[in-house]
């Protein structure tokens, strides 16, 4: 990942916003308000480690905008976490909630740490410490956290438990991503990946392609990628290549099979962080290629489902001429430079904050269910998710067609306009 250290995701998010603000001809006050978060929290979390020493972790929470409802966003545990990453992700959450038209604003949080090197007890202490610092500034009516990079349902339960202990009552709607049976929603695990493919299915229809006649290459093999591949295969598609991070080698690899990958087989040789065992993969007939090889495959569809800043001005030229669609499962996987390349080549981009909004939509469903303490069947969750994602996609593609906009710009126009209107209606601007 050489050369990526100078990349500032917040600057990129602001650049994207500025472009849309121009399209919408927003007034200066609204621009100023929406270019920056409403609130930011940065704090220390002292934790007594297993070896008896105290270590202090840095935590963040950014609430970008809550004009449309309580802020919502994940909590990331990542060693390279920065406040600018969190700011950018919080802003994207605002747009994401708005584009799928759920009554929530955008937020994001994080802790600079690497859970791979922490014991469960130490991780629990970080979670509880994070909530103690923010207990008055988050909650079901204020700001609702969720799992994100390297956090999971267990982390959410620790946080919920701490929050409820502090407030002396049960608030299952405080946090989402909880396990089923403990306030979680059925369908949440599948939601982001499935949501991605619901929009992909509509994009294929728009291009006159049948899923069974297409093939795809996917970056990442975590939860989003796995469920996206699952539903894409169920619709008849074939995945030729996936890539993933190798924890031991501290690099990524691509795994290719020209006859199509077998999802069940790959899952059986994958660790809980989405790392595929390359030795076992070779035994099963997969070619093991360098990490970036997923991007250059001869396929119809690319699904970047790993981290931000993966398709860049440097590597976008390597995208095969057969590629018709880029469906962004990850947040911010494509840089503005790469975007220009995609646009010039007429590649249909399903922008990240639309394509991967299935997760937050289902989180919203979870929060609704938790607040009611009444839980739906999975059919109901997935049915609602599909309808929500499909209508969001259709609104975006319709605007893109009518105004001759790039898909990403059309999605931004819809989202930013909704948020700006809410701020205006509240009398803020």
């Amino acid at each position, binding site marked *: 990942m050489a050369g990526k250290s100078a990349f500032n995701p917040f600057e990129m998010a602001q650049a994207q916003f500025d472009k849309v603000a121009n399209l919408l001809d927003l007034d200066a006050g609204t621009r100023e308000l929406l270019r920056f978060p409403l609130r930011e929290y940065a704090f220390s979390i002292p934790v007594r480690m297993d070896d008896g020493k105290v270590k202090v972790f840095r935590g963040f929470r950014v609430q970008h905008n809550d004009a449309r409802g309580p802020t919502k966003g994940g909590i990331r545990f990542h060693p390279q976490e920065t406040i600018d990453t969190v700011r950018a992700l919080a802003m994207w959450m605002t747009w994401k909630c708005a584009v799928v038209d759920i009554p929530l604003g955008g937020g994001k949080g994080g802790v600079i740490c690497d859970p791979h090197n922490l014991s469960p007890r130490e991780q629990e202490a970080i979670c509880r410490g994070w909530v103690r610092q923010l207990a008055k500034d988050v909650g079901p009516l204020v700001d609702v956290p969720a799992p994100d990079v390297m956090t999971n349902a267990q982390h959410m339960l620790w946080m919920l438990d701490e929050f409820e202990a502090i407030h002396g009552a049960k608030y299952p709607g405080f946090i989402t991503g909880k396990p089923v049976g403990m306030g979680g929603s059925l369908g949440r695990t599948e939601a982001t990946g499935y949501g991605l493919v619901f929009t992909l299915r509509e994009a294929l229809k728009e291009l006159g392609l049948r899923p069974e006649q297409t093939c795809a290459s996917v970056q990442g093999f975590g939860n989003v990628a796995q469920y996206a591949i699952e539903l894409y295969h169920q*619709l008849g598609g074939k995945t030729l290549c996936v890539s993933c991070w190798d924890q031991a080698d501290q690099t990524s690899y691509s795994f290719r099979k020209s006859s199509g990958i077998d999802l069940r087989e790959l899952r059986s040789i994958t660790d809980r962080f989405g790392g595929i065992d390359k030795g076992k993969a070779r035994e099963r007939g997969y070619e093991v290629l360098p990490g970036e090889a997923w991007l250059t495959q001869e396929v119809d569809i690319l699904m970047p489902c790993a981290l931000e800043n993966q398709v860049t001005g440097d590597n976008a030229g390597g995208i095969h001429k057969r590629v018709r669609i880029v469906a962004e499962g990850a947040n911010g996987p494509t840089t503005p430079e790469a975007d220009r390349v995609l646009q010039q080549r007429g590649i249909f981009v399903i922008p990240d904050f639309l394509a991967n909004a299935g997760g937050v939509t289902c989180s919203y469903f979870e929060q609704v269910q938790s607040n009611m303490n009444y839980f*739906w069947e999975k059919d109901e969750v997935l049915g609602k998710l599909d309808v929500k994602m*499909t209508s969001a996609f259709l609104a975006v593609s319709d605007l893109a067609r009518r105004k001759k906009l790039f898909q990403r710009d059309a999605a931004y126009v819809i989202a930013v306009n909704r948020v700006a209107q809410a701020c205006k209606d509240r009398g803020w601007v």
Partner: protein
Amino acid sequence: MEGQTRRNPPEGPSWVVPFDRRFFDGADPFTRIGGGAIGGKAQGLALIRERILSRLSPQPFDGIEVVVPTLAVIATDRFDAFLERNGLRELALSDEPDDRKAQAFQRAELPAELAGDLRALALQLRTPLAVRSSSLLEDALEHPFAGVYATKMIPNNQHDADTRFRRLTEAVKFVWASTFFREALAYARSVGVDPAGEKMAVILQEIVGRRRGERFHPDIAGVARSYNYYPTGHAKPEHGVVNLAYGLGKTIVDGGTAWTYSPAFPKAPPPYNSLRDLLRQTQTTFWTVHMGAPPAWDPTRETEYMRQLPVTAAEDDEALRFLVSTYDAGADRLVPGAGIDGPRLLDFARLLKFDEVPLNALLRRLLRLAEEEVGAAVELEFAMTLDPRDGLPARLGLLQVRPMAVSEEEVEVTEEDLLRPNAVVTAGFVLGNGARDDVADVVYLKPQRFSADATPAIAAELEPFNRALLEAGRPYLLIGFGRWGSSEPWLGVPVQWSQISGARAIVEATLPQMSPDLSQGSHFFHNLIGSRVLYLCVPHEGSGRGRIDWDWLDGLPAVGETEHVRHVRTPTALRLRVDGRRGRGMVLRDE
């Protein structure tokens, strides 16, 4: 399976477009959800639309708009996905009771790729829907699976979209589950089909009808057949026959009382001795989709949202008042309409006798077109609405077309044959046509133990005999009293088809108090004919030709016996002969 050809599953015509999540205002009123086959019933509807209605002129036909009601069919790949992903196959093909299977299907999850389409439907529709089976085997000429699988009518009028969605998904899962209900598995096995190969598409279809208070139903439902197995008077078999009923078609397909007439002689009264007899045989109840307060929740019951009501409950309906005649006791005659007080007869007189709506002419035209397209005798199911208050605009929805099995085998039974001393059964009235020499088992109801109030118990007693004989691969002759398969226990034994599906020949002995005609529109009747079961009707003494040698049967040792039923095995195979052309039949033993 060497030597056996397996048809490719019908995928449906290429014009069937994908469902675009708009039902009534979509690009096409006939759409498909998913890939794979659309099943026999949907194929039939496609045929109606493309090859029958396209040739029907004028359209509207003299004031009647003829349509295939708007529908979306969930193709079989969704069914496969549902079974596979929920691991239901083993249970489905097991001998677990139907309600266990239905419950397991209810608990299972819809394929993710289907949930959104159903949700979209639930969001936009607030009118009743028929959720209908359309299996690969259903309605194929060689295996008529009529009425074996479930159809569920849902009111779909709940205020809340979530509730409508849940009721819709429950209905779809119920129809899928019915693929593997006991009756369906037994029927598949009885006709030599492996149930594991069966796949179920599901049709979501607009119900042709109108809402009146808590009721939603068509004004007329009917079954028209181009071949009549029971012609009476001047009618010939090829003239066909039509059954009409008020309300949903369930009255007819369940074998209830409906108005039966020959399309060649629509004005001819049915063969009853007197008007009073006729009045006793008129339709008295009808089926409706219940639109009122929710009934007890029971997603595994086919009639969860249906109600059977007395016809008098609809006395104020304009349409009903238009369709009935009223008996004028003073003049001992029928007066069309409901203008005077008196007993009502649902004889559709203003349509059939006075031609105020040219329904009969339309049905004759449709039957002819359908016969030409199918290349065989056909059966059409339809439903219709009309509005007597406003110039009688009418709308007729065609719901199904099915080929009919008419045997051409040359069998001759003469008058002299009926007098043979070695005849176990002779009959002067038969159904079907053909000969069999492979039946050596006889299951019969003991005449001395039979009574009309025991018929439901008898139906249950028959099932184990049927199962054992099916498993042993032994075809059998079934002899009993009254109308087999009647939905009304006092008219005969109310067996489900699955309870006697191994019988290859059936004898219906009438009793003085039990001598109704079989309803030709019923699913039971259809399966009987379609499975080429020979049917012999032996009238009670003094009312016609035919007899049963009860003494000989009673003299054979019993293989099995219950209170009302006896199973015997003959020393050598019986010879069964049914001469459909001359209407005679006999069962002979070795001399």
